[in-house]
């Protein structure tokens, strides 16, 4: 227990900060994922074969390639790509991207592929009559989407989105390879300096369990809220 005390002698405060970091990366990644889903879900649902192909390429490639490989691509290729873009605008200095941004982007792209599939499935399982009815009523496109489709889609998507959240939360442990100090990295450091890996990795496992347990509780509440009237 002494190992977990706060202050200079223990690792309690470091691990607490690391846990907050894990939560921050997960939420950022999830939001970035939503952005990607917002772009790719319409592509996958569109009638054009070409747009379909782009959407399918994204979800197939990301879901078929290990997360670690994607993270390495961003870790080693990220600053190169940004520097290349910057050099077009005439900026030739070395740019180093923050590990937080690289990490959340890499995890975000992965989580986006899963979210895209969830949203696509949810929209496709909405009754066709709903689309036709809002067309017949002459609703404008934004109102049709935000007031008719979105509420029904969310109800269907939330249970699956909670799975995506779990996957995203667990995937953030992989960012530790890039040196971002989240739960896994902090446990690695603590285990190295105290020579007590069993304790610290087990504690990390407990922290992750706690996070998944608490987020499940929260999401269950959301689920109840969005299925009112059913």
């Amino acid at each position, binding site marked *: 227990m002494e190992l977990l005390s706060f202050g200079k002698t223990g690792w309690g405060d470091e691990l607490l900060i690391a846990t907050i970091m894990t939560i921050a990366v997960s939420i950022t990644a999830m939001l970035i994922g939503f952005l990607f889903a917002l772009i790719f879900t319409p592509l996958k649902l569109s009638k054009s074969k070409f747009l379909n192909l782009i959407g399918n390429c994204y979800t197939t490639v990301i879901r078929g390639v290990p997360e*670690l490989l994607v993270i390495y691509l961003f870790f080693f290729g990220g600053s190169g790509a940004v520097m290349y873009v910057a050099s077009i605008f005439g900026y030739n200095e070395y740019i180093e991207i923050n590990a937080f941004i690289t990490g959340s982007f890499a995890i975000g792209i992965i989580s986006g592929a899963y979210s895209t599939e969830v949203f696509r499935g949810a929209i496709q399982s909405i009754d066709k009559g709903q689309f036709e009815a809002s067309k017949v009523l002459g609703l404008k496109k934004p109102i049709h989407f935000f007031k008719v489709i979105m509420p029904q889609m969310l109800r269907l998507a939330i249970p699956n989105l909670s799975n995506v959240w779990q996957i995203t939360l667990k995937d953030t442990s992989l960012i530790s390879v890039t040196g971002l100090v989240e739960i896994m990295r902090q446990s690695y450091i603590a285990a190295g300096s105290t020579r007590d890996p069993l304790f610290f990795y087990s504690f990390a496992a407990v922290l*992750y369990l706690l996070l998944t347990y608490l987020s499940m509780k929260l999401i269950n509440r959301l689920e109840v809220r969005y299925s009112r009237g059913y």
Partner: protein
Amino acid sequence: MDFELMITSLPKLLNATLITLKLLSASLIFGLFIGLFFAILRVNKNPIVNKFAYGYSYVFRGTPLLVQIFIIYFGLGQIEYLRSTVLWVILKEPYWCAIIAFSLNTGAYTSEILRSAFQTIKPGIIEAGHSLGITSKIIFYKIQIPIAIRQSLPAYGNEIILMMKGTSLASTVTLMDLTGVAKYIISTTFKPIEVFIVAGGIYLFMTFIIHNVIKFLERKYSY
């Protein structure tokens, strides 16, 4: 684009794919037995047995695979007692540690898949067996298990693909699998995109094969 690098790195990566495949097949075989064992415990009526099996799958599904590998590879070596037993021969090898972690992990997911398959079997089928005078044991082996396997094929196919991606974590415990070699080539040549295309292509190809084999099995065993 450095096509020469892509061509020269291909044989090295294909060689490393062998280790990935070995890890995958070993963990899937062990994981299937672990999963079947815990799924049978889950449908057991004894609440203690039931809770134990649920706890196992909850812990392994709620924590990242990386933590599990690290606990087994770095953590277990710390226990002095283990070092003096025969188990140490296995636990000092990163290869076996990775297989143990992967098997336990995929076992937890497989047990959930099989459990839900067992529970969706219509009671009428089992009752029909009973009324024909077939013993419970034969009903279990000859009726429940085959139906459960057919039911769980699509979900199990997904699990195989997830596990294949999971084997990439073996590279964090010094094993040179496909991802490990890819990372090594990237960090020595600093050409991430080219290596990613080749290594990612190999992974995608494996996903494609697994996907189609499962589809074929589904069609073969459909009723």
